[in-house]
Every structure is written in structure tokens, then in C-alpha cells.
């Protein structure tokens, strides 16, 4: 199930989405009524299935056609993977920031680091080693940069 939480007094409306995007997701109920300019934060979206992809595309396509403007921030790894694969999912210009997953060899946990679209381009040149949030050991990017950031080139 998908949950949407609006951050009070934010302009444009900042909506934090969390959970799962699937056949039960009702985007109109969750996101309608916030006006035609949205800032959507997606770090906590765990997964999206094929029907969820269809519903997302239908909603945001209609939103854009009716003059709506949307920006996506902290796109979770599952959404970045979808963005790279599915056309008309998110427009490149709408990407405010993404989450990049770093795997810690010490404790096998994953640390998500947030990169703006501009910072993400730098990842293509050099991927940093970051410190694991749990054990502080070194963590490496658990994606192939050229594939994970393919949307930047499209």
C-alpha cells in the first residue's frame, strides 16, 4: 500500500510517498487536491510493480497534460531502475534528486546517499567510497554507474 504525507506549510506542496506502488494505489485520491505544482519525495518507496507503473504513468501523464508541474526528489533505487527502463515514467527535467545505494562489505547493510541531478552526473566520472551508516566501514556503490544513471544521458 502507498501512503502520502503532506509536509505542512510547504510551497509547492511537498508530498512524502512511502510504501509500495501497485494495483491498489489510487494516485488521484492520494495526490489530487494539492494544486497543479507538486514536489514529491520518494526515498521510502520500497517497490513498484507492473500495474503500479501503469497507474503512475496514467496519473502523471494526465497531470502534466492538464498543466501540472511536478518534481521528484530522493527517487528510491526501485524508481530509478524504473525510470531507466520505462519511457514516459519521469521526465529528465523533473528529477530533483535520486538515492544511490551503497553496500557495506563489513556488515552487508545498505546506505542510501542522496544526490541532486547535477551531483549524480559527477558519479559517472568518479564514484566515491562512503561510510556505512551502521558500522562506519567503507561502502561501495551497489550499481553500475553507467546503467544506474542512464537516464541522465537520455
Amino acid at each position, binding site marked *: *500500500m502507498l501512503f502520502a504525507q503532506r509536509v505542512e506549510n510547504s510551497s509547492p506542496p511537498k508530498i512524502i510517498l512511502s510504501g*509500495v506502488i*501497485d*494495483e*491498489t494505489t489510487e494516485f488521484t485520491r492520494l495526490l489530487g487536491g494539492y494544486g497543479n505544482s507538486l514536489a514529491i519525495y520518494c526515498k521510502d518507496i*520500497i*517497490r513498484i*510493480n*507492473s*500495474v503500479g*507503473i*501503469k497507474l503512475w*504513468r*496514467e496519473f502523471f501523464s494526465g497531470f502534466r497534460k492538464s498543466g501540472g508541474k511536478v518534481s521528484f526528489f530522493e527517487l528510491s*533505487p*526501485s524508481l530509478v531502475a524504473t525510470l531507466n*527502463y*520505462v*519511457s*514516459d*515514467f519521469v521526465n529528465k527535467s523533473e528529477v530533483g534528486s535520486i538515492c544511490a*545505494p551503497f*553496500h557495506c562489505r563489513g556488515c*552487508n*547493510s*545498505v546506505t542510501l546517499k542522496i544526490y541532486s541531478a547535477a551531483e549524480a552526473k559527477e558519479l559517472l566520472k568518479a564514484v566515491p567510497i562512503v561510510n556505512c551508516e551502521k558500522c562506519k566501514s567503507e561502502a561501495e556503490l*551497489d*550499481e*553500475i554507474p553507467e546503467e544506474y544513471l542512464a537516464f541522465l544521458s537520455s
Partner: protein
Amino acid sequence: MIFALCSNNFEDLSFATGVAESCGGSLVFEAKIASIFERCPDPASIEALFVSVDSESDLTDRLKELKSFDVGRVHFIFSGESSVGRQLFSNGIPANLIFKRFEDPAAEGRHYARVIRSRSASTFPSLRNLFPAASIHTLDLEDWIEKENVTDLILHQLIGIGCSERVSQTVSSAVDELLLNAFSSGLKRTTTGDTNDSAYGPSIQIQLGTEGEYVGVSVTSFSNSMDAKKILLDLGAAFDKVNAQGDTPKSSFGLGLALILRTGASLRFFCSSGRFAEVSIVFKKTQRLIDFRKQFQFVATQLVGSF
């Protein structure tokens, strides 16, 4: 048991040798299919025929050379070009595909041998056909409302058996897609929640098991409306989508299976029209998702009865 390999490639030879040795059989290795049939005059004696193909046109030529050989016993080793998969499955050909992405071909051959052994063992769907030595956990699902809870349960079970969080998320997403397919493939589903409703069903069973470094998760749908041919078409559509950019919303047929194939996991379909369809996700327990995506991968089909 006799195994045969038609290839010029030594990695393929190493792989097929691994399969044959694991099954206690012998391997016939030739560059041409005709040469294999000369050495094995009784094609029915060939347990599995591995054929290397590089392109769609290569596949067309090989299919002609196979003549009346049971294509269900053919295992195409291919470069990953999606048109090969599309051509096979969209034409209703229940073959098997092995992605030529070997890291340790002999070991991967020994792993793939479980697919070969399961073909003779499988009379009724069970993950034990593929993982005979595993401890199998089974869940039964009656209503699609339970889908999200079951998917989350699979996620936690995968983490519990030592899969990393990202790998577990990836596999549980794949299970979610299979459950979606199982519930939406024209099968009756109650809208009232009334279990006495004659339209209630189907029943779905999920199984999880692990053997060494490999894990299997299967989703089996029992229904008299199961159509094996439709499953092949769905697979063909998936191969159509797996490398290309996704298409418009009105054509999401096969997208779910394409998403699963893109993860790097292997799939095995065991179907009997009018009775059941079992789809098993098979994968190596890696810690990093990068390694999961690069792992040895196959798509195997075993269809029983007419289709």
C-alpha cells in the same frame, strides 16, 4: 543418460560437461546437429540437447535442423539477444534458454542439472522437483487481498535465510509480479469476499527453499482455466520488452515477466493446461545486487499435456 552439445565454444562444453557429469550421463559434442543425430541414431535416447545460437537467424536454422526432435528437450545457449526468446515463445515453442553469461561454466552446469533432473521428477508442481534436498516452506493463498502481506513475509523469510536486503527486495518484487499474474490471468476472483461464492478461487501456493548457495521461490496457481499457450505468449512478450525501453501503458502484456528477467534471476515454468502453472524463481544468494544481476541465468519451460 546421453547428453549432446552442438557448439564451437569451450565454455559451452564445460557447461554441458558439468550437466552431464552431475546427472551421471555422457556427453556427445559436435559442431553440427546433423553430426549429433548420426552418432545418436535414436534421438529419443538424448536426455537433453544443448545448442548454441547467436542470433534469430541462427535460431531459425537450428530449428530446421532439429526436425522432429522434441524441442522441450532442447536447451539453447544464447547471447542474450531478446529476439531469440521472443521468436521461440511467441511462436509457442516450449524450449529452454540459457544465457551465455558464464562465470564458472562447470559449476553452473552442475547447478543447471537440477532443471534436467526435475523434468523426469515433475509430475505435480513442487519446488522439491528443483530443490530435492531443501527444506521447503509452503504458504497457501486464497484471496488477492493477502498478496501484500505474503510478499512482505517472503521478503523477511529471504532476509532470514541470509539474502541481503536489496536482493530480498528484488526477489519479493518478482514474487509480487508472479502473484499479480496468477490472480489476473483470467482466473475467477471473488469481489464479495464470500468464500461460498462459486466463483471463488484460484488457490495459489508459494514455496521457498534453499540448497547450498541457491534459493528457489515458486508460485503455483491451481485452476482449470490455466492456459499453457498463454504463458508462452506472455514469455514471448516479456522478451520483446526485456532490453527495449518500456512501451505505452496500453501494452503492458509481459511487462511483469520482463521486469523479473531484468533482475538477473532465472525462471522455470512448469505448466499443465487446465490444471496448474508453477513459476519458480531460482537465484544465487549474493550479497550485492550488482552480483545478483550478473549471475548465471536461464529460462526453462516444461509443459505437460496438449497446449
